[in-house]
């Protein structure tokens, strides 16, 4: 038990700070009062921080899950013998697509889907797909041909080779892609407030519109803590995976 806590102490520390910030922001009213002495309200009250955090996580989770499923599937399909025709196009599109600024993709999904959570999820999914896809391709192509030969030689079916050899060996690289994807997704979901998604970006945007620096700071601290908390969790998972595969 203690070993587990010790292993996860980084993420747990950030999680504790995040929860503290979410539930005890009101206790720090005197500090925020210093920032905006003239404002009528110094603590953002339009929605509760817990509600915003939950919705932010929901938007990110749905988008990231879709991105991971589609990205890994597409990566697998174009590296099979029957899908290999599409490999050059897909890998080129994955690298060109990453030059598109996330905020532009977010804005362009509004004419398609209107305002709200849905276009945000769509844009995040589309953009988050690229790092996952790119790393899946890199990971699968990095598996040595002799390894595949050997796996087939001991009588593994194509599905077994894929699941137990190729994806297993590629998993550290794929996980690195997922980490990049989730980092971008959390950051872009915050900007999603401008297209009507209800996320932790709301206090920041409201504060910028009303000139209330305290609101901005509260939103910024929460978004930052959330990002660091999730990223440090990924760091631990990657660390564990590297230990297991001796990487």
């Amino acid at each position, binding site marked *: 038990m203690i070993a587990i806590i010790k292993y996860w102490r980084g993420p747990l520390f950030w999680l504790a700070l995040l929860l503290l910030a979410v539930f005890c922001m009101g206790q720090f009213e005197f500090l925020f009062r210093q920032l905006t002495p003239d404002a009528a309200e110094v603590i953002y009250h339009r929605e509760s921080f817990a509600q915003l955090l939950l919705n932010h996580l929901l938007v990110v989770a749905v988008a990231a899950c879709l991105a991971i499923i589609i990205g890994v599937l597409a990566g697998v399909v174009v590296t099979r013998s029957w899908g290999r*025709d599409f490999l050059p196009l897909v890998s080129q599109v994955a690298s060109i697509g990453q030059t598109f600024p996330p905020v532009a993709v977010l804005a362009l999904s509004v004419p398609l889907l209107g305002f709200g959570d849905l276009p945000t999820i769509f844009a995040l999914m589309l953009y988050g797909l690229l790092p996952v896809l790119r790393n899946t391709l890199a990971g699968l192509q990095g598996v040595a041909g002799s390894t595949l030969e050997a796996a087939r030689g001991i009588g593994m079916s194509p599905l077994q080779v894929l699941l137990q050899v190729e994806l297993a060996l590629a998993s550290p690289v794929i996980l690195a892609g997922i980490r990049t994807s989730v980092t971008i997704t959390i950051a872009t979901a*915050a900007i999603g407030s401008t297209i009507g998604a209800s996320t932790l970006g709301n206090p920041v945007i409201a504060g910028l519109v009303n000139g209330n620096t305290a609101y*901005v700071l509260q939103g910024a601290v929460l*978004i930052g803590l959330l990002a660091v908390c999730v990223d440090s969790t990924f760091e631990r998972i990657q660390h564990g995976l590297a230990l297991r595969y001796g990487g």
Partner: protein
Amino acid sequence: MTSEPNRVVLTLALLALLIVCLGDFASVQANRIVPGQGLGLLAGLGWPWMTGIVVGLLGLAGLALRPTGRRYGLMLGLSGALLIQLPVALAWFIQQHISAEQPYARVGLAASCWSLLFIGALLLVELQQRVVAGRHWVKLILVLLFGVSWLLIGTGALAPLALLREYSSRSSTFWQLLYGHLSLVGGALLASLLIGLLVAWLILRVQPLQRPVFALLNFFQTIPSLALFGLLIAPLSYLSAHSPLLQQLNVRGIGWAPALLALIAYSLLPVVRNTCVALQGVAADVIESARGMGMSGWQVFTQVQLPLALPVIIEGVRITTIQAIGLTAVAALIGASGFGSFIFQGLGQGAMDLVLLGALPTIVLALLADALFSSLASWARAGVQR
């Protein structure tokens, strides 16, 4: 030459055919406020034009069934023609549906026009690797596409396009925003190169610093842009309130100052990481033999290490620039000048054409930066091999 069908081109051509037949080509709006009325290919362009596009796509699909070297050339030509006819088709559409007495009427691009553009681009990407000197042909097609568009815009034939209507009512702001966007990106790039190369030099000398420096730079990259911009507002406005010098420089809690600081913080990681990797990647025996030839330490650095490391360093600058172009658009939220202003204004007013006027130039800037630094890197790589 294989006679297997090219399934990629086949799929793309049939997909384009489906969308072209079902989707609207463009829409007509009487003014900026009223909803537009979408028109399909037949209603919008008439049957001769529609037949041309359909035959072109069918021809593409047919050639893809039994591709040979020459047929790939034909396919590339057809794809190029499909793209280049788009601005002409739009001009024709405008002539058919907008009269000179409607100064506020505007034409918006609809599903089938966008997908022809998108699928055409995918076709070029797929075909450029199948044709001898494909890259150069694709460049020629792009030059022709932009040339034709430019010509039509110049004659005013495309003036009722919604995007151009938005532009013409804000043309001076547009160029100001371009200047603001470029100067923020350029400033951040310059500063992060100076600081980044210095930091890289330092941590290559003092190895124990490497871990903490990379941990810090990675930490910055993890913080979402909106959060970092927000976190900088309070301290900067405090500093500005207490320093007349900063006030004279127009450093305030919002505006260019927090944007530039955040951009530099984000830009440092790619620059420092790539510089370190590149300089460490120069093999020790290469340096040894350069010393053996009697080169001084400075000569080894400028004549051996730097040229060998340059392509990787430029790759870092490429990543930095693309990232900075996107982040500058976000920085419009904290009052920094850039194309983000149009995006967020448009979102606020529900004016999608204005959003487009901000988003498209941002994407174009990012693509141009990508092309520029990619060719710089390959030029540097070629220099090494000579």
